[in-house]
């Protein structure tokens, strides 16, 4: 009986591990393809000869094409995504706190409007938003990519729900001790919401990092493109050079994966709340 059970468990883990390999195989294929020698890219599932030629070609150019500003695009992506995400977190923290803990008239109404907005198909705003950005003179600037993405409704919603669960007594006690509301948010509430903040940051950062349509619309000059947009633009022209395309994909994907794995310790705890 015990032996039978052990066999079953072993089988279960073999299945789980196989599924895991299948799930991450596109990533593996991408990384291997970026380091493979060029006559093996897309010709062998697991390459046997490796070289850095794809990366060299990508950054310094070579036969067939001039170098594109990949590092600049990488910087743009980092800058835009980081700034946007920090703003989203900061605004959501304040708005969520006010909706959950500062009772004021209109509080309820705002809450309901946010819920409505969250489910409102955003595509209808695309064209007027673009016109607005052009009208403000923000076309082809970082502002265009950051300002319309400085507030995130989902983040507000998450924080509001989380703060509702925080005990009032603690905040009251701090208030009696003479702490201002700013101080309470900064010194008490923020440290208490570390795992949820990590998870919200991760999600909004990721979403911002892989945005294509908006970043493609509001930016034009080559040195302003984000990595995702540049990669999408090169899909056709670099079609005959799959190696460098994989190298650029690695550049796009790796930072997110690393960020995620660094924070994955907080992931489970934070997710438990997000999934509720």
């Amino acid at each position, binding site marked *: 009986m015990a032996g039978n059970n052990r066999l079953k468990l072993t089988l279960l883990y073999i299945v789980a591990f196989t599924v895991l390999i299948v799930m991450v195989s596109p990533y593996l294929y991408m990384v291997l393809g970026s380091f493979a020698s060029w006559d093996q890219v897309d010709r062998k599932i697991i390459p046997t000869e490796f070289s850095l030629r794809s990366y060299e070609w990508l950054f310094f150019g070579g036969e067939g094409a001039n170098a594109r500003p990949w590092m600049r695009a990488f910087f743009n992506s980092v800058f835009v995504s980081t700034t946007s995400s920090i703003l989203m977190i900061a605004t959501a923290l304040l*708005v969520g706190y006010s909706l959950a803990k500062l009772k004021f008239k209109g509080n309820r109404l705002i809450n309901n409007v946010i819920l409505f907005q969250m489910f409102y198909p955003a595509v*209808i705003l695309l064209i007027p938003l673009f016109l607005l950005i052009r009208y403000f003179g923000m076309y082809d600037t970082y502002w265009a990519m950051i300002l319309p993405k400085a507030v995130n409704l989902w983040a507000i919603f998450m924080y509001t729900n989380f703060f509702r669960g925080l005990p009032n007594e603690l905040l009251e006690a701090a208030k009696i001790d003479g702490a201002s509301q700013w101080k309470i948010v900064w010194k008490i509430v923020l440290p208490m919401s570390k795992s949820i903040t990590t998870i919200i940051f991760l999600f909004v950062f990721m979403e911002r990092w892989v945005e294509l349509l908006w970043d493609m619309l509001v930016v034009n000059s080559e040195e302003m493109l984000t990595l995702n947009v540049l990669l999408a633009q090169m899909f056709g022209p670099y079609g005959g050079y799959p190696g460098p395309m994989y190298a650029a994909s690695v550049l796009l*994907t790796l930072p997110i994966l690393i960020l995620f794995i660094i924070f994955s310790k907080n992931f489970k705890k934070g997710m438990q709340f997000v999934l509720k």
Partner: protein
Amino acid sequence: MDKSNARLGWLFASPYLIYSLIFFLFPLLWATYLAFTNWNLIAPDYEFVGIQNFIEAFFSESVRAAFFVTYKFLGMFVPIVVGGALLLAMLIHSLPKFKGLFSVAFFLPYLASGVASAIVVNGILSHNSPFNIWLRGTFGLDIDWLGSSILAPLIIALMMAWKFAGYYALLFVAGLESIPKDVYEAAEMDGAVGIKKFWHVTIPMLYPSFYTVTILAVGLMFGIFTEPYVLTGGGPDLSTHTWQLEIYSQAFERLNAGYGTAIAVINSIVTFGSILVFRKILEKWGAKHGWE
């Protein structure tokens, strides 16, 4: 005390209020107006054309394509991703150890950019890829994957299912963990085992997770852009031409801002209506099993 709280409340909420005024309410009103004009993004003058844009959209082949393509995607993506996520969740749930490790690993595809996955898929399906050479050699099958109007949408649906299954699985895991043990015990006493137990106990008990996952998945299908834009450009024969592609190409490639906005308005109505219908269907199914 209360008064200062109220003031602070408005102050703290002000970033949201200002943002919504500028980047939501105003564009929304503007969109409603634009949809009834013939503006072309550039010319200083334009006219109010009434419902002409909507009539034109109604008879347009590409708008009709977007309408049906979305439901085609829905029909492929939703069953695949819901089934896949459920299987992944059951796998995670049944593991006595390393649950966290596997949940994190299955979640990783969610982090992929649609552009990067399009590049990988394009490589795997390229004419001389090991996969296609094997198919030709072993079965004599020469398939033009992305050139087929049946296979291209299926490939995009599979790409998206790969991306979202691990994420949705976490929702199912949370659902599985919340099923009380005594429900199973009671069912076993009534003689429910194996498939029967799964079908008559587990599935109905998972209703809240099914509800959330299905609505998320349905909503997603109305906003597809990146994958078809990069991989197929909406083709072949408009078979992957989504709403977002249609709006993008009308407004920003052909510069018909008014007409494009009208399509966006139609799209948001269709989206809203479809999600409502799906919610009603799901709620009905839930009510049958005692969920409110």
